[in-house]
């Protein structure tokens, strides 16, 4: 398998690289256009989606990345990465753009500010219980046809999807990369 890229403009890049290495996959940090060459998948890490969106534009990465993803490059987004993959963003900046590969609406900080951030166990279809950290996490509020819900979680107010897949894109509201978990990344690699 060719190496998997981790978007390294900002955020918890190191944790994703470590998980990939732990399951025997070479990871390459993607900061510029040249780093996209030859990757067989891409991880968009946690961080601040507004910062990543801006740096993708200023670094000239937005168009080549959009082309690769529209062409079928498998992608995993966690937290801010999920926001970047969503078709529509609620409570974000009015001008916030996204890659739009997942036909879902996400609400930024939908589980609350940092003082509401939490750890829990999420039941994932086909995997079982997975430890996840929800840090100022986005909440998926609507899901269109064609999107598969792989996990939901009820943190009060009823269950909402927290792990979804559409085609070659996988979006995760929580951080499996912070809890020592590898199975979400293994699931992602099954798409690569």
């Amino acid at each position: 398998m060719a190496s998997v890229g981790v978007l390294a403009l900002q955020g918890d890049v190191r944790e994703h690289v470590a998980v990939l290495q732990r399951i025997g996959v070479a990871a390459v940090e993607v900061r510029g256009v040249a780093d996209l060459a030859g990757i067989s998948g891409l991880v968009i890490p946690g961080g601040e989606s507004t910062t990543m969106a801006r740096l993708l534009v200023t670094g000239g990465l937005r168009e080549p990345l959009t082309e690769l993803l529209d062409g079928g490059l498998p992608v995993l987004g966690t937290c801010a990465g999920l926001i970047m993959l969503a078709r529509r963003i609620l409570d974000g900046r009015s001008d916030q753009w996204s890659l739009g590969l997942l036909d879902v609406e996400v609400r930024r900080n939908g589980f609350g500010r940092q003082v509401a951030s939490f750890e829990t166990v999420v039941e994932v279809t086909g995997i079982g219980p997975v430890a996840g950290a929800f840090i100022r996490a986005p909440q998926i509020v609507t899901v269109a046809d064609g999107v598969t819900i792989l996990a939901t979680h009820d943190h009060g107010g009823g269950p909402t999807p927290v792990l979804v897949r559409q085609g070659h894109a996988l979006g995760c509201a929580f951080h499996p990369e912070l809890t020592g978990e590898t199975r979400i990344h293994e699931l992602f690699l099954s798409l690569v």
Partner: protein
Amino acid sequence: MTTSPDSSTVGSTLVKRGLADMLRGGVIMDVVNADQAKIAEDAGAVAVMALERVPADIRRDGGVARMSDPLLIQEIQATVTIPVMAKARIGHFAEAQVLESLGVDYVDESEVLTPADEEHHIDKWAFTVPFVCGATNLGEALRRIGEGACLIRSKGEAGTGNVVEAVRHLRTINAQMRRVHSADAAELAGLAKDLQAPLPLVREVAETGHLPVPMFCAGGISTPADASLVMQLGAEAVFVGSGIFKSADPVRMAEAIVEATTHFRDPSVVAKVSTGLGAAMRGSETATLEQRLAERGW
């Protein structure tokens, strides 16, 4: 730390340190009003620090510097989508309680404000909101972590526009970590005594070679090249205080420091964003300072 009905744990050490992990590679900017907060977010800041005066003005004005008016913090929270941090005085746990109740995302127990307690820092384990604290050396960093800090920033000398103290503190912490990392097990108790740091944390540094929490840099960063310098010296993100809004063109300076922090290893990017940037903040020679903020706290 509390447990909610769905068996989730709110405010665990993992999620408190985890937010700091999410800020890595980014720039946290001091802002004194909602307009500045918007400029910071537009420029790509990963968080803002809400305060009434930037350190350069605190230094100029003198007097007692305290926690900001909650109204100012709320206005900034209503304006931006990125995390909002705010400062409490060293040892002033009541100010920290107020900031937590306002829902700020990180409390900075900061030497930039006038200390409220000369012997005790805040017991940060008692809070759900995470804390960042300054440090000038490894012992100070580990004492703060022992008290519950989830993020360390090297102190530098705030409000000077002079990066020399930031470099001194980063190099000191790094050199001391290398010393601990290369020590044998029998030496660690003596090192902990010399550093005046908790032995379990010294053991952790000995094993991993780095702090148990992220280490950012603050105090004197005022150009894109300054940001690149401290990132290359091992800082994982930068706090910029007076350096942006005391420069000739704050919008461009903010954008340039964000770019330089992400691409800190690429001098051609740092050169590009530095070109025609206008004057950085004026700055001051630290040898002539009347008040050294970094000496506050212990």
